[in-house]
């Protein structure tokens, strides 16, 4: 419990203290918060493996909020801390001399705390709150260089797309709470499948798709590359984008089959589309962004087909090698900035201006290569293990469902395999373009291009994470993960030849992909030699890929469509509604005038008449009571006569 609170708030406290202590000391102060935090998180992992940590307290009378750290969240908390720690370290050099470095560390700490809160939250609404905080802090970090209009716009765009998807999440959360009549994620279950449950599942799915940058929301992740590169490594590769996958893993047991099938299809589609888009990008970070989307597509697909443990394993291994790739890219960009800092129009992220960097950045090269091979899914690397698990799961699922749904389910697994072929192609292309061949711009040796502590250590640690032995003993067994049994229990053995086929296929595809990349993008190839800023793709496929399936144009079209509708509605509003309102106003005024006349003349007249009658009657009747004896006598006489006459007739 104490560990939990400490683990959750330490990054934020560290970040705020760093902000308070000024730009010079900020990195050290922030690290002073992160290092104990990491140690605490390891102890938390140990504690959670012995017993789930559950904390609940009454927020309002009769209404509880709750935290829970079980195996899954504990291991992810450790992971977030690990990556975040390395990113803190890396940023100290990457952002050295930036005037906003204190602000940067405060934002980084805020983000880390939000992410940890998201992982530890057991209450659906609490989860939503941290989900939003994560989105917001990501917005702050993407827009870190907010003075650059383009970057500020990119941050806004990423935030807006996320918000659209978050609306889906909110709907899903509310429907879930209504369905299960209790808001704790750990106690979901025990409700029959129904239409509402499917609807709730779709809501959660939309939220997860937005956060994990899946089709049709994936346009924001390449935009998010406007943030500092270490931030991309932490948020847009290893942790935040994994939040959607994490949520789906959490709620997967209660999702209905139709939702799961949709999840699988969207995941496969995204994996394929993003892999295609990655092949023609020239921005070193955008290639990585699309590869991230593609890998997240794998995870989402794995959840959809019921291979959640493989997805989680992939989430784990992907965090290491993708953070490694991003930090490697960060080192490259940092180096190019240092070399070309006098040229302001120089784009340090354009791969067409790189080449031959392995001479200048040897450690970065090795780390990037290891992580890249892991991403390609080559055997002996961690990416192979987890990706193979997902592909096997998908194939098994397709084989099982094909009788029920028809042949098209094989398209899902086939898209997975095609993506497995495309992945090594773009990874290879990137490695060739960046590190091999001739330098295509000025490259001079610089002192401390890879500072030992701040750059080399994170890169080495993360590239070690790309090697199989740190995850499983057998480099070919997808289910041999050390943590696998603790997290998901013993898996049933599969009586089928599919896993063997998958094994052979994925090795073959990875090698074939690398071969293709050597042939078409290798250092000997003319196109790579002559790569310059002018050769954008010209074929139809190339254009679709380079513009990432025109997703952005699609968004623009959507928003301009909305604007048109809004304009139309505004005209209607002005012409019809306003006039109606005006007319109603005029009618009201006129009728009130008429009513005023009626009121004054008729109603008031009646009232006055009544008053006049009563005063007249009163006047007459006061005569009866004049107090004069003789008057009284006259009346007496009159009434006497009246009575007499009355009796007479």
């Amino acid at each position: 419990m104490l560990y939990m609170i400490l683990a959750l708030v330490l990054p934020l406290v560290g970040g705020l203290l760093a902000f308070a202590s000024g730009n010079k000391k900020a990195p050290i102060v922030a690290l002073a918060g992160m290092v104990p935090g990491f140690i605490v998180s390891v102890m938390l992992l140990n504690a959670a493996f012995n017993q789930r940590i559950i904390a609940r307290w009454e927020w309002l009378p009769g209404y509880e909020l709750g935290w829970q750290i079980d195996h899954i969240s504990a291991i992810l908390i450790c992971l977030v801390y690990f990556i975040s720690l390395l990113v803190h370290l890396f940023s100290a050099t990457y952002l050295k001399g930036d005037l906003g470095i204190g602000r940067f560390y405060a934002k980084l700490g805020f983000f880390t705390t939000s992410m940890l809160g998201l992982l530890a939250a057991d209450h659906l609404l609490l989860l939503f709150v941290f989900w939003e905080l994560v989105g917001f802090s990501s917005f702050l970090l993407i827009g870190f260089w907010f003075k650059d209009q383009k970057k500020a716009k990119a941050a806004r765009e990423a935030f807006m797309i996320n918000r659209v998807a978050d609306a889906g999440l909110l709907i899903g959360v509310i429907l879930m709470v209504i369905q299960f009549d209790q808001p704790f994620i750990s106690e979901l279950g025990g409700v029959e499948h129904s239409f509402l449950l499917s609807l709730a599942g779709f809501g959660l799915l939309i939220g997860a798709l937005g956060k994990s940058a899946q089709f049709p929301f994936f346009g924001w992740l390449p935009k998010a590359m406007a943030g500092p590169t270490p931030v991309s490594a932490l948020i847009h590769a290893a942790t935040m984008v994994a939040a959607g996958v994490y949520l789906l893993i959490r709620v997967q047991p209660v999702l209905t089959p139709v939702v799961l099938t949709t999840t699988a299809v969207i995941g496969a589609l995204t994996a394929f589309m993003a892999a295609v888009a990655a092949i023609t990008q020239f921005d070193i970070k955008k290639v990585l962004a699309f590869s991230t989307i593609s890998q997240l597509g794998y995870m989402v697909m794995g959840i959809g087909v019921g291979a959640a443990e493989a997805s989680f394993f992939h989430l784990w291994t992907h965090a290491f090698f993708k953070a490694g790739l991003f930090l490697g890219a960060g080192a490259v960009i940092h180096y190019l900035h240092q070399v070309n800092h006098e040229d302001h129009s120089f784009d340090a992220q354009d791969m067409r201006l790189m080449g031959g960097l392995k001479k200048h950045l040897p450690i970065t090269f090795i780390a990037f290569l290891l992580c890249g091979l892991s991403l390609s899914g080559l055997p002996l690397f961690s990416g192979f293990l987890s990706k193979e698990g997902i592909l096997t799961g998908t194939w098994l699922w397709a084989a099982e469902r094909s009788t029920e749904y028809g042949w098209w389910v094989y398209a899902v697994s086939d898209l997975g395999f095609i993506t497995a072929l495309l992945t090594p192609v773009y990874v290879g292309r990137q490695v060739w373009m960046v590190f091999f061949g001739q330098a295509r711009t000025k490259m001079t040796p610089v002192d401390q291009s890879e500072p030992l502590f701040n750059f080399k250590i994170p890169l080495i640690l993360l590239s070690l994470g790309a090697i199989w032995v740190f995850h499983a003993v057998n480099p070919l067994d997808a289910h041999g993960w050390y943590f696998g049994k603790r997290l998901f229990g013993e898996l049933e053995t599969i009586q089928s030849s599919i896993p063997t086929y998958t094994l052979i296929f994925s090795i073959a595809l990875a090698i074939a992909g690398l071969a293709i990349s050597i042939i078409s993008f290798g250092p000997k190839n003319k196109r790579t030699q002559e790569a310059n800023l002018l050769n954008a793709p010209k074929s139809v496929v190339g254009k679709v890929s380079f513009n990432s399936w025109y997703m952005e144009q699609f968004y623009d079209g959507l928003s301009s469509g909305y604007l048109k509708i809004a304009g139309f509605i505004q005209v209607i509003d002005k012409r019809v509604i306003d006039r109606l309102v005006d007319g109603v106003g005029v009618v009201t005024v006129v009728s009130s005038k008429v009513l005023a006349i009626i009121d004054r003349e008729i109603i008031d007249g009646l009232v006055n008449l009544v008053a006049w009658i009563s005063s007249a009657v009163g006047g007459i009747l006061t005569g009866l009571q004049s107090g004069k004896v003789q008057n009284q006598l006259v009346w007496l006489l009159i009434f006497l006569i009246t009575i007499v006459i009355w009796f007479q007739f």
Partner: protein
Amino acid sequence: MSAIPLTYYLILSAFLLCSGLLMVLIKKNAIFVLLGIELMLNAANLNLVAFSKFNPNLDGQIFAIFSVVVAAAEAAIALAILLNIYKSFNSSDLDDLNTMEY
């Protein structure tokens, strides 16, 4: 003998009563009011006498004598009261004597 018919008596008596009543109602001085009352009383007496004339029974005439006696006593008492009122109000005008006016 040709007797005066009853109607004549009754008309005279009604005239007397009305005169008395008028005096009671319109005279300001209390003395005149008393006089009016006497007139009305006598009108009643005249009625009694007139009716008894056409009736062999003498009850009416005796009743009229009683009535005259009572009227004399009443007049005496009323005048005495009036005298006292005059002494205390220093007026015998009915309007001045009014203490019931609102």
